[in-house]
């Protein structure tokens, strides 16, 4: 689909690029197809793309978008694609100039997409980005300009099965040593003490970050003793049999399923699992901050959350409307609503404090989120390479192919592209 927004010459060039595909052209007609950007009159509706495919999330976001649309005087057409296909979809739409009017992105992807030139700085719509937590604001910023804002943020924490801990007489672990001891104590035939996602994907990286960062490790220099110690902790958990070797293949969803099935006593996961955990009435679970190397330290966790952006298109009017909806999503009241619905944390510290008072069970997350770090804060658009290096190192170390030191040396080479 080549939008009419595209200059004629460019369109012809696009056709010529695939010139040898003459037959295809005849089939599809490389003509002008009207894109969403062509409307010049009064804007009555805008398109939105996100990855909230599952209910109740999908409906909750749909309702909020509709409500915000109403205040801006437009109807909202919401499309949701699965998380893994969002970036491919956005890139595809970027090249065919069919981007939606309002686009949601996972925060570590923002800089990469902003770099392509497909997004617009929010400053030009007069959106005020003050009062947001530093972490999420930095994730939404590229080259000094804010391109995306997130109404609510989250991070990961330690979930535990209260019954199992009580049965074994184990306290909720606070430090790495306690974690190892507790995991060993909780392991039984057919059950592991601990579970993480050590998958060879960015999700695996995301779960390792709290261990790396809390120990003073850093993604800009991976071959450090701090990083090796963090990796050694995971290796030891697997080696001692407190954690299944299958963590190598598990996604966060798998980890959740293991926990619900009673096959693991503790797990690392995010608050978005809480609604599903609550569904099982026989499951008594608790949540705590991720254990730190030494008692008294503050855990540094990665910042999760989706930022909303206004992509480039040729209709100023549509962009304005989209920006109004974006601002509405990010106002303090809606932040609170979203946070309560999804067990996340409002991204304005002021709102978050109020929230912690209202919902005490979320206090662990509010506390973690304050110290949470955006994945792109150090490396910006270079983050994907470092993330690849990290999960590769985790895999090599957990399989026993390499020692943590060797694996991280290799990871550093991947991160720097050498």
């Amino acid at each position: 689909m080549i939008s009419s927004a595209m200059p004629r010459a460019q369109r012809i060039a696009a056709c010529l690029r695939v010139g040898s595909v003459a037959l295809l052209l005849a089939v599809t007609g490389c003509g002008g197809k009207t894109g969403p950007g062509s409307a010049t009159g009064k804007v009555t509706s805008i398109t939105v793309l996100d990855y909230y495919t599952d209910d109740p999330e999908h409906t909750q976001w749909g309702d909020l978008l509709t409500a915000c649309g109403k205040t801006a005087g437009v109807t909202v057409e919401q499309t949701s694609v699965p998380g893994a296909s969002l970036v491919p979809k956005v890139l595809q739409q970027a090249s065919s100039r069919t981007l939606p009017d309002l686009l949601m992105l996972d925060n570590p992807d923002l800089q990469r997409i902003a770099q392509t030139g497909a997004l617009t700085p929010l400053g030009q719509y007069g959106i005020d980005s003050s009062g947001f937590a530093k972490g999420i604001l930095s994730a939404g910023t590229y080259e000094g300009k804010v391109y995306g804002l997130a109404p609510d943020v989250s991070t990961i924490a330690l979930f535990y099965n209260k019954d199992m801990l009580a049965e074994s007489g184990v306290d909720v672990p606070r430090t790495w040593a306690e974690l190892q001891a507790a995991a060993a104590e909780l392991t039984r035939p057919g059950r592991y003490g601990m579970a993480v996602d050590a998958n060879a994907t960015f999700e695996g990286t995301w779960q390792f970050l709290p261990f790396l960062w809390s120990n003073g490790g850093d993604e800009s220099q991976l071959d450090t003793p701090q990083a090796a110690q963090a990796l050694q902790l995971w290796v030891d958990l697997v080696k001692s049999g407190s954690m299944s070797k299958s963590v190598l293949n598990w996604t966060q969803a798998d980890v959740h399923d293991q926990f619900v099935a009673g096959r693991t006593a503790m797990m690392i996961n995010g608050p978005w699992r809480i609604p599903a955990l609550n569904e099982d009435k026989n499951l008594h679970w608790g949540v705590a901050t991720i254990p730190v190397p030494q008692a008294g330290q503050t855990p540094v966790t990665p910042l999760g959350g989706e930022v909303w952006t206004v992509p480039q298109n040729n209709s100023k009017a549509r962009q304005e409307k989209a920006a109004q909806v974006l601002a509405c999503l990010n106002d303090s009241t809606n932040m609170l609503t979203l946070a309560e619905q999804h067990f996340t944390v409002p991204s304005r510290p002021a709102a978050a404090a109020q929230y912690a008072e209202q919902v005490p069970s979320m206090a662990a997350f509010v506390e973690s989120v304050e110290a949470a770090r955006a994945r792109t804060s150090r490396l910006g658009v270079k983050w994907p390479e470092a993330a690849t290096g990290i999960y590769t190192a985790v895999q090599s170390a957990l399989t026993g192919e390499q020692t943590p030191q060797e694996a991280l040396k290799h990871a550093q080479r991947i991160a720097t592209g050498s």
Partner: protein
Amino acid sequence: MKRAPDRGWPSTIIGIGLVAVMMFPVYWMVNASLQPAGNTLQGGWFPLHPDFSGYATALRDQGRNIVTSLVVALGSVALSLGLAAPAAYALAHSPVRGTNLVLFGVLITQMVPGIVVANALYSAYNDLGLLNSYLGLILADSTAAVPFAIIIMRAFMQSIPREIIEAARVDGAGRLRVFRSVVLPVSRNALVTAAVFTFLFTWSDFLFALTLTTTNTVRPITLGIYEYMGAHTNQWNAVMATAVLASIPAAVLLAVAQRYFAFGATSGAVK
């Protein structure tokens, strides 16, 4: 000609044993699909209390993808036969210069990895708006089928006696009519073989489904299972029920058209 004396039931027993080992994964898939939701992390050896809720979930979540696969597979059968049958006939019955070149080209296609095709098609499709479309998938999926169909049908059509064709020509039939009313009816078996294989190739396609679709609007069942697997591990019965549903065409075709498979295989170039 008579073979050495037939072996008896002992061979049958060994044969059943061998097939049982080979078929175990298929049994296990069916067994898993009939377990109740959730506990299939450790299902029993036999579906003593068959539970069809997995199928209900599978049909609800994946029903649409099955229809998509069906549309794509049938479209690909039509396209492949439409392209391959005339070509096979011409290659079998006309010693025109260039025949060998075309045949060589067909052979070369067998060495081109699907990922090469997918790589290039992705950007071409992106420009043409063919990503996430039935047409795009049908065109791409036929890449496995067209060369194969040409090979199989040409092999068959070579055996059609020239006299039959000549006789029809003498009666004044044009080339197209000879093809339509003489060659095609006589080649029924080869056409069915090619159609059956094309259907199964396309139905089983995973690579193009994975690379040339980015949304859930047009999603073949194979990709449906792959993504299902990642998202619903606590519903293995539904995942496995989907797998069973996706196996039905192969099983049905095997039951009704077994002889065509042997023909297809002995004619070479099959995955």
